């Protein structure tokens, strides 16, 4: 066995359940005695991406592979896609509706933070088809 594989379905219907997948991964990383800085970075990046899946797309799934020295994450949704990725990556850019902003989301810092906390980030997106976000967090020695 070279990795621990975890799979989660993220519901697009219940906004209040967003964060469950990242919470579960966090718990498992702690049980593995994983590097604590890497745990924090995985938790933050996954949490932000999970929120995006729920507020901008209609949910999707998450695949996580935990290796001794890094964690690979795929966050996949069948939402509207991101028309201009470069713009979406800018700090403060957000298309979140007001009701979501009132809950404290939609500050336009999600994608920039994901970039900041991960060692590798790749977005594959197609209008009307969906978005796949590939993330890697390495254990810093």
């Amino acid at each position: 066995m070279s990795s621990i594989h975890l799979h989660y379905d993220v519901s697009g219907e219940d906004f209040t359940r967003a964060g469950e997948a990242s919470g579960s991964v966090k718990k498992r990383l702690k049980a593995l005695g994983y590097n604590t800085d890497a745990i924090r970075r995985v938790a933050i990046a996954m949490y932000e991406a999970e929120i995006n899946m729920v507020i901008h797309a209609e949910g999707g799934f998450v695949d996580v592979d935990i290796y001794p020295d890094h964690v690979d994450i795929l966050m996949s949704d069948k939402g509207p896609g991101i028309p201009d990725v470069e713009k979406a990556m800018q700090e403060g850019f957000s298309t979140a509706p007001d009701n979501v902003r009132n809950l404290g989301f939609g500050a336009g810092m999600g994608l920039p933070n994901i970039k900041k906390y991960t060692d590798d980030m790749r977005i594959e997106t197609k209008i009307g088809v969906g978005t796949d976000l590939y993330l890697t967090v390495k254990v810093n020695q």
Partner: protein
Amino acid sequence: MKQYFHSVELDADKCCGCTNCLKRCPTEAIRIHKGKAHILSERCIDCGECIRICPHHAKRAHSNPLEDIEQYKIKIALPAPALFGQFNNLDDIDIVLTGLRAVGFDFIYEVSRGAEIVSELTRNMIRDNKLRKPIISSACPAVVRLIKIRFPELCGNVMPLLAPMEVAAKLARREVRGMTGLDDKDIGVFFITPCPAKVTEINSPNHAEKSAVSGAIAISQLYPALTHAMDHLTTVESIAKSGLIGVGWATSGGEAAAMLGEKYLAADGIENVIRVLEELEDDHIRDVDFIELNACSGGCVGGVLTVENPYVAQARIHNLRKYLPVSLNHLDEKDVDAMLWEKELTYNAESFALSDDIMEAMEMMDKMEKICADLPGLDCGSCGAPTCRAMAEDIVKGVAKETDCIHKLKAKIQSVYDQLSSTL
């Protein structure tokens, strides 16, 4: 494995293995083995939830009986501010403090006095930008222990300042040494405690090798003697030296309000505290400088060793504060160093890690996921573990076996029976 001191313990004779505490423990630190609810030492944070829930009074907190003060030449009482919320129609804290004198203490130093000094120092440290934000209060030892075993990256946010109890103990000792010329060993300092977490903190401090407090007497244990003494006072001495800031620490939000205008958040009740810590860890709580967390609902007035309903106590504290000046104790810059933690708060990975070797831990987790998928998923607790997942973990660790699950056992017996009856 390290040795841990805990004040919460099991009275095995009274325990009937009903699983009430098993399901309520916030750190999943309880396992029922041979019908008795044992506590996993490396996971217990002494919050007292199991004492609160047990219908058979089989969980108890170790604390000192009042007689223990007799070992010392001078006996100091450090009443927690929560004590003042325990009495009906009380309008003067001095009645309680004089009562403490009547039950045998020579000198009284309110912990609320230490609290005012801690509040002032915290404000200064926030102003000077000396701390990693958001700052998490270190006053509730159950919360500090929870962070230590479960929130590695938040250890650095915990305010490295002594709790009011320790500050009060140090200042009281100094005053009494000055008055009497006695040595520290002849001076007994007893905290009148609302909770077991403080007892643990005295016996095995997070912040230093040794606490300045000698022992702790539970509010609930002292209560009969104290109320009796209070009812028979002939005069009331003038002892109290706390303002409304210090007394306010008894209830949730009091410590945070003493930050005077800083952006703060106060949460109470262990489940709420865990939610806040999880969100902090995910970097989801922003725009807050100071976070007050109390393991008990309502704050220390809700401590499991108090006698009064926490909400009633809260209302009384609120009333008592009305007639008090803002603050009567002020920081002496010379004392600042003595109020900082002697050692850093470090994460204790051992509490939840399957192994200290990552490869071995991964193998164990792999097995655990498979076992877990095969268990019924009822989280019924009858195996002795709080959830099927915890059970899977225990099986992998070799401390439980699959047939401890009664549903698994039943299926096994059924299949043996089916086999037998088909051969008949």
